[in-house]
């Protein structure tokens, strides 16, 4: 009997034991469907976490801050240090081989006017690296360039929310607005940054809205026009790769220590976030495999159980088959194929049911889900593998039955 015939015979045999087949198939269907649904839900959650980290900014970033020391107990060296300055930022860009972007920031709240509208708005003095470092693309026009910084140009990049406040639907690029009475030309508008978390009571909140509420001018212009010195409010630098982050930490520390003469600064990587992200991922992976394993193991035990029961019920049949010429191998193949036919068809229905459950969770419960081909392959593949593995033991038992004993069995 060849394999194709065995599959046909297995299918016909299952069809002739409808009750048993249906129970087994329901078990496998539920197992496979729950694997698909749970895995998709978890993948959705994992994806959301990843997206949040990615949207928030690259993990290659380092944040350099001034350390706080009490004025009363300052040493001479500490008093002599100018703290973090724009010149530090330039030195890092020159002297650190692992650095990709240097993003110095000075923030001021300034009176901004256009026509008869006047607001106090947050203005950031920065340079061309800002959008790269913070993963913020430009929507219209251009960002501040190196040339703007060199020339102390009076140009301004607008945040999308402020652009609406001042101009509404009106074209903004090329127009002139004033900052503390000084005219600035609008050269670009940032892309709106969005990441919604569902708040209590179903209201959605854009947790990244603060990004949209900033203006940007060249840091050199900020220093010349609006501040008394070049002390920075923040300095963010990024490494050429995530792997280069430790090297950059060392390089930046060296450069700054040489310039300040004292360690009055702190270089922080987002290692905590990197760690958090990796932990999240590891956690999701463990749950992922645990759920898949448990569901399918349960399914497998069900199969083994039903098959063993069905063998007891069919000992006479096995005896008859052997008496009329079935070898142990024929009987073995018959039982394995039956397990395969059941689990494969159960697996297929399970995939459909699983996809249905995923759609329901997505649409009705509004939970993020993601179905990847890998999930479908894992769920189906495992259900078939489980069928074969758990079908083997009962099949071996059936194949080894002594025909004389089997025929005598009542």
């Amino acid at each position: 009997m060849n394999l194709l015939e065995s599959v046909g015979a297995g299918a016909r045999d299952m069809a002739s034991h409808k009750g048993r087949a249906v129970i087994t198939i329901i078990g496998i269907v539920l197992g496979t469907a729950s694997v698909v649904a749970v895995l998709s839900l978890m993948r959705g959650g994992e994806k959301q976490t990843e997206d949040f980290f990615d949207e928030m900014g690259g993990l290659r970033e380092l944040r350099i801050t001034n350390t706080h020391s009490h004025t009363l107990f300052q040493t001479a060296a500490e008093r002599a240090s100018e703290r973090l300055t724009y010149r530090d930022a330039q030195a890092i860009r020159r002297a650190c081989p692992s650095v990709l972007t240097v993003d110095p920031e000075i923030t001021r709240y300034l009176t901004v006017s256009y026509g008869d509208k006047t607001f106090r708005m947050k203005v950031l003095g920065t340079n061309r690296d800002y959008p790269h470092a913070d993963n913020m693309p430009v929507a219209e026009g251009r960002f501040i360039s190196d040339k703007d910084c060199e020339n102390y140009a009076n140009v301004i990049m607008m945040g999308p929310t402020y652009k609406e406040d001042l101009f509404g639907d009106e074209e903004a690029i090329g127009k002139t607005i004033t900052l503390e009475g000084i005219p600035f030309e609008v050269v670009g508008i940032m892309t709106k940054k969005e990441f919604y978390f569902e708040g209590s009571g179903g209201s959605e909140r854009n947790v990244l809205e603060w990004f949209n509420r900033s203006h940007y001018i060249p840091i050199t212009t900020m220093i010349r026009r609006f501040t008394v010195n070049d002390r920075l409010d923040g300095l963010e630098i990024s490494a050429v790769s995530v792997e280069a982050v430790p090297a950059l930490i060392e390089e930046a520390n060296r450069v700054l220590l040489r310039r300040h003469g004292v360690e009055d600064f702190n270089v922080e990587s987002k290692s905590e976030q990197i760690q958090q992200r990796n932990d999240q991922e590891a956690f999701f992976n463990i749950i992922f495999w645990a759920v898949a394993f448990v569901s399918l193991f349960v399914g497998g035990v069900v199969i083994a159980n039903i098959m063993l029961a069905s063998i007891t019920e069919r000992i006479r049949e096995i005896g008859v088959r052997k008496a009329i010429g079935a070898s142990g191998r024929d009987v073995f193949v018959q039982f394995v194929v039956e397990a395969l036919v059941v689990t494969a068809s159960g697996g297929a229905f399970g995939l459909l049911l699983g996809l249905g459950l995923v759609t329901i969770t997505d649409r009705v419960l509004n939970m993020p889900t993601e179905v990847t081909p890998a999930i479908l392959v894992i769920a189906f593949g495992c259900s078939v593998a489980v069928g074969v593995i758990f079908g083997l033991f009962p099949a071996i038992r059936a194949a080894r039955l002594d025909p004389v004993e089997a025929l005598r069995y009542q």
Partner: protein
Amino acid sequence: MLIRTEELTKSYDLGAAEVRALRGVTFGIEEGEYVAIMGPSGSGKSTLMHILGCLDTPSTGRYFLNGTEVSELHGRELARVRNKEIGFVFQNFNLLPRVDLVANVALPLVYHGGMNRAERRKQAVRALESVGLGHRLKHRPNELSGGERQRASIARALVTEPSILLADEPTGNLDQKTGREIMGILDELSKAGKTVILVTHDSNVAAHARRTVEIEDGTIAREGRA
């Protein structure tokens, strides 16, 4: 000589005691013979039938079937011999309950190999017609009378055209009238040249055969010819 046995013995080791079911059986059966193996229960006739039917192997001694020493065969080879050389007719019919008669009768051909499904079904239908069940092809065993079931079981035994028809108490579960009908079919088959071996304790059944071999206490006690 179709069947030849030399000093067949069979012992079962039951731990404390060794049970000797056969204690040296030597006999032969020619092609086309109609033989009844008789004996009370516990005489060893069932064990002898199992060995003759290649369902079991002797502890010692030799068994030649159609020139092949089958006492040396095991597992798959023995399954092949059962399939090709032996047709079983059981006391309790042993048809598969959930499939129709055609599928039941075609089953030995499935293990026989070399035939597609359509050919197997065709041959099964022919075998069923030959025992007068041409009108019952699509019925399942539980929809049939005992006599019809036994006829289906004979059809299944004949479908591979085996050398030997081995019938174990073929009328044991039937009423007298139906039993006579079944014996009539076996008589016909014998007349047509088939080698038929009856295993029975019923002398009325054994009377249909032309030769009887009586087993007692694991050996041949008497042989007789009609």
